[in-house]
């Protein structure tokens, strides 16, 4: 038994026919006992296949492979993944205490300062990039494309400035900044250690760049908040 619909039965079962083809096939099946029987058999086979996965779970695994797997894993250096970095300031609040309102004000200030910084600094970077390219239109250089020496120097410099101006910041703001910086620095360090163990892993490279970028951004925000660079 074969006709032009035979090879379309699987598409029909998988909902892969156009509406018009589906209607035509359904009309055909009403008159073609062979196709109707084939469709019924295929439907039963597909249903049986789908039941296999559930049966696997019911049966479980007869052999416990864990002891051997565990022994193998102990010989493999752990590819550490940094703890999730805490967002510097909470953003989901349903009710606010006075302290939380103050923190919200700080967040708004920081966002504003960051926006100003980005508007200012991004334009400066594009200008520098254009100059370097002889005035041609090129993509702006990312703020931290790698934990390069220049970025490390900037981080050290910003830390010194922030340390000198800590008394200009509200204690609760300073505490929030320091906690966030500690979290980001820990993440950078973990990413760096992980990358040492596996220098070719592109995920770790990208992760370290992202963490270093966050660290730099956070420090710049904090210095801006403490009075900006002088």
């Amino acid at each position, binding site marked *: 038994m074969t006709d032009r619909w035979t090879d379309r039965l699987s598409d029909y079962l998988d909902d892969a026919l156009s509406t018009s083809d589906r209607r035509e096939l359904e009309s055909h099946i009403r008159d073609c006992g062979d196709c109707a029987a084939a469709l019924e058999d295929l439907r039963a086979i*597909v249903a049986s296949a789908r039941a296999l*996965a559930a049966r696997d779970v019911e049966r479980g695994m007869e052999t416990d492979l*864990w002891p051997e797997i565990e022994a193998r*894993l102990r010989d493999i250096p752990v590819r550490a993944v940094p*703890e999730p970095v805490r967002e510097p300031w909470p953003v989901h609040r349903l009710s606010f205490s006075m302290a939380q309102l103050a923190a919200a004000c700080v967040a708004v200030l920081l966002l504003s300062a960051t926006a100003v910084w980005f508007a200012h600094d991004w334009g400066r970077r594009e200008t520098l990039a254009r100059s370097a390219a002889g005035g041609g239109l090129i993509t702006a250089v990312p703020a931290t494309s790698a934990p390069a020496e220049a970025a490390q120097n900037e981080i050290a410099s910003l830390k010194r400035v922030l340390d000198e101006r800590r008394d200009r910041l509200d204690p609760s703001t300073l505490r929030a900044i320091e906690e966030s910086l500690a979290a980001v620095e820990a993440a950078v360090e973990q990413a760096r250690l992980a990358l040492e163990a596996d220098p070719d892993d592109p995920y770790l490279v990208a992760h370290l760049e992202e963490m270093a970028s966050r660290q730099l951004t956070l420090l710049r925000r904090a210095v801006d908040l403490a009075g900006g660079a002088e």
Partner: protein
Amino acid sequence: MTPPTTLVAPVRSGAEAEDVSRAQRGDLRAFERLYRAHVARVGGLVRRMMGMEHSLDVTQDIFVRVWQKIGTFRGESAFGTWLHRVAVNVILQKRASLRTERERFLSDEIALETAPARGRTDARDFDVERAIARLPQGARTVFILHDVEGFTHEEIGVFLGVTAGTSKAQLHRARMILRDHLTR
């Protein structure tokens, strides 16, 4: 009839997410819990794709690979879905090392034609497991990945390096071979 939407047992609430997070930081006990939650499904997949001979070794290899790669899991899909993708890749690599997968996919013979004949069996009682094992490898691979595991033809195409159309054709072929066996 639409493909199954879940490849594995539903995500085990926040507990599994917590175990994934812990395992990403090197916690072997958390990884053991993930292993125990998923090994039955992974073992079934390996057994069908590889046969009994290699199933235990390859299942071990899969969980070792998952441990090595778990740091790259970003939570963009369910953990079980991600784990099964890793599993399929390990299986296909293993099979490729035993025989060139693509050659077999395109040129294998219909093994069921030599299978012992059986009387008409109701499809619901049909020993689909045994019949799957006798399918030609290309058709069997697609049938398992699509009808048992729930991958789409597009995903299968990526796994096997073939087009979605080729995957569809192999699936229909597999189902029709199984039906032939059923109606002998």
